[in-house]
């Protein structure tokens, strides 16, 4: 149970290469924060700084109001789940769970109680006396979680814990991690590069790029109102369509829209463009069908529009020939105005 405060946290490697360029973040008690971004964006470095595995170049890390930027990992009262699980290969599952507690001088009875409890929560009771190499990937993942749980720490840190699992197991474990975190109400930081994982797990998302925070917000906020062009193109699948204003100008009804100053790019979500004329006011674009990708219950429709390609998500499998001319409708509220130079939205004050 803890709050985490990151204040102007910076990390540089060997002089002036900044991996993390001043991150501010405050995590409320019991919150699950997901750090998401492409590889090399500094999210893992940030997490490892919170864990105490990377030194802090400047800034503060406060856990429960105490600055721990210089403290050893063991003194920070955190537990970490690693990408490759990092289970001690020569110890049994029980040994793995107990090790951190033994090092802290926890009384025997207390260790047994916690191990039993964690084994019940994670359903790894029958495996307690096995070695990690005798376990499957999903089971190892559980043990790694168990090792964090028995510690009853202030915060869990997850470093891409699901990326070594196959797709099906990943979805299953994702749900379990979410349930577990809700149940234990332990403050958590979770790093992933998978935006879907990020969207489904997070109380709040921190989207990072190039060592900077692009946007902090709930998954819906980030999806519905991306603060920057990067967030718009990173979150959502397929990503948001980004169309220059001069291309949009050819659309019916577009010129009548009041655009914020400096807008030169319009973003539109794939699911907000439709091919049937909707109720109410809408903007109409004319394009050619490039490709129809059927994916089960819906299809991704690629439409070319003055050299730009838009992707739409349409229900079912519409009967459209490649090259056919098509009309696309979008409500004015679906337009996200951006400025290319700053990379930011133009209809809201820039975020701090």
């Amino acid at each position, binding site marked *: 149970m803890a709050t985490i405060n990151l204040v102007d946290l910076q990390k540089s490697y060997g002089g002036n290469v900044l991996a993390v360029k001043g991150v501010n973040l405050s995590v409320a008690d019991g919150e699950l924060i997901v750090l998401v971004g492409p590889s090399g964006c500094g999210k893992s470095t940030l997490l490892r700084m919170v864990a105490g595995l990377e030194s802090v170049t400047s800034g503060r890390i406060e856990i429960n109001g105490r600055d721990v930027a210089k403290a050893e990992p*063991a003194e920070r009262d955190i*537990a*970490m789940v690693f990408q490759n699980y990092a*289970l001690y*290969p*020569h110890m049994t599952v029980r040994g793995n769970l107990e090790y*951190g507690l033994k*090092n802290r001088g926890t009384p025997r009875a207390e260790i047994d109680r916690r191990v039993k409890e964690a084994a019940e929560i994670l359903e790894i009771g029958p495996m307690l006396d096995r070695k990690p190499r005798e376990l499957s990937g999903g089971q190892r993942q559980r043990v790694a979680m168990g090792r964090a749980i028995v510690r009853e720490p202030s915060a869990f840190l997850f470093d891409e814990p699901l990326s070594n699992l196959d797709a099906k197991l990943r979805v299953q474990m994702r749900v379990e991690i979410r349930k577990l975190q809700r149940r234990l109400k332990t403050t958590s930081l979770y790093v992933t590069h998978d935006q879907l994982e990020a969207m489904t797990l997070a109380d709040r998302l921190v989207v990072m790029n190039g060592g900077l925070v692009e946007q902090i917000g709930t998954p819906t906020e980030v999806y519905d109102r991306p603060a920057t062009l990067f967030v718009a193109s990173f979150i959502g699948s397929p990503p948001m369509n980004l169309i220059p204003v001069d291309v949009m100008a050819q659309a019916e009804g577009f010129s009548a829209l009041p655009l914020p100053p400096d807008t030169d790019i319009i973003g539109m979500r794939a699911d907000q463009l439709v091919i049937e004329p909707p109720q109410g006011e809408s903007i109409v674009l004319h394009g050619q069908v490039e490709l129809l990708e059927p994916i089960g219950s819906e299809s991704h429709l690629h439409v070319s529009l003055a050299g730009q390609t838009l992707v739409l998500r349409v229900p079912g499998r519409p009967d459209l020939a490649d090259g056919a001319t098509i009309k696309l409708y979008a409500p004015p509220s679906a337009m996200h105005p951006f400025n290319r130079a700053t990379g930011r939205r133009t209809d809201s004050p820039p975020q701090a």
Partner: protein
Amino acid sequence: MVENRPVLNILTHVVLIVGVAIVAFPVYLAFIASTHDANAFARGLAPMLPGPHMIDNYAQMLTSGLSSAGAPPVWLMLINSTIMALTIAIGKIAISIISAYAIVYFRFPFRLLAFWMIFITLMLPVEVRIMPTFKVVADLGMLNSYAGLTIPLIASATATFLFRQFFLTIPDELMEAARVDGAGPLKFFRDILLPLSRTNIAALFVILFIYGWVQYLWPLLVTTDSRYYTIVMGIKRLAASADADPYWNLVMAAVMLAMLPPVLVIILMQRLFVKGLVETEK
């Protein structure tokens, strides 16, 4: 390779059997010699079957030795050799695992320099630096002592290098997990690294024990007191009698006895030894 070709099977077996025979025959001959009386081999026609004097020969060598050659009883030399081989093997492993730990897991100034200096000593085997080493040991008054026999041979670049390579294959996350779990450097070494190195240690122990056991030149130099003779140099002394033919039967009995401890070590540690060579526990 799983193949089912009878001709190849027979051929490989023939090659192996011939190989074993070539290696084993001299050993067999030595054993036969050790069971005959002194004259049996001097006649020029070597017997091929064991003779009746086995117990006499071995008992004489073990208890009283060959006083005419100035050699102590074999049991004393066996003990000396065992002490020397054990000290060298254990000392080498202890020192090299600690120095490899320092080189791999700690960031200190001149870390690379330290590693390369250790590595360069690989190019200077005992024989090359034997004169200066002897001088140092003599000046320290360590001639005719177990310390003099073992300490100069303990530093080991090879073992350090092997442990370093092994430590580099252990994922960093393991160390990080241990740090988060509250294990300091010593705890991490004792609780994680040592158990993981178990098979490597066993394999190295076998190799180093034999290395220590077969040392010949160094014990020959630093021991003049027969109480510190080791078995390998002692055998040479047994065989070198000035005026008469050597007692080949007794020499061979000593040879057979000298072979036993290394063979025993290999047999006892074989399982771990093979595991250490072929498998990394992960």
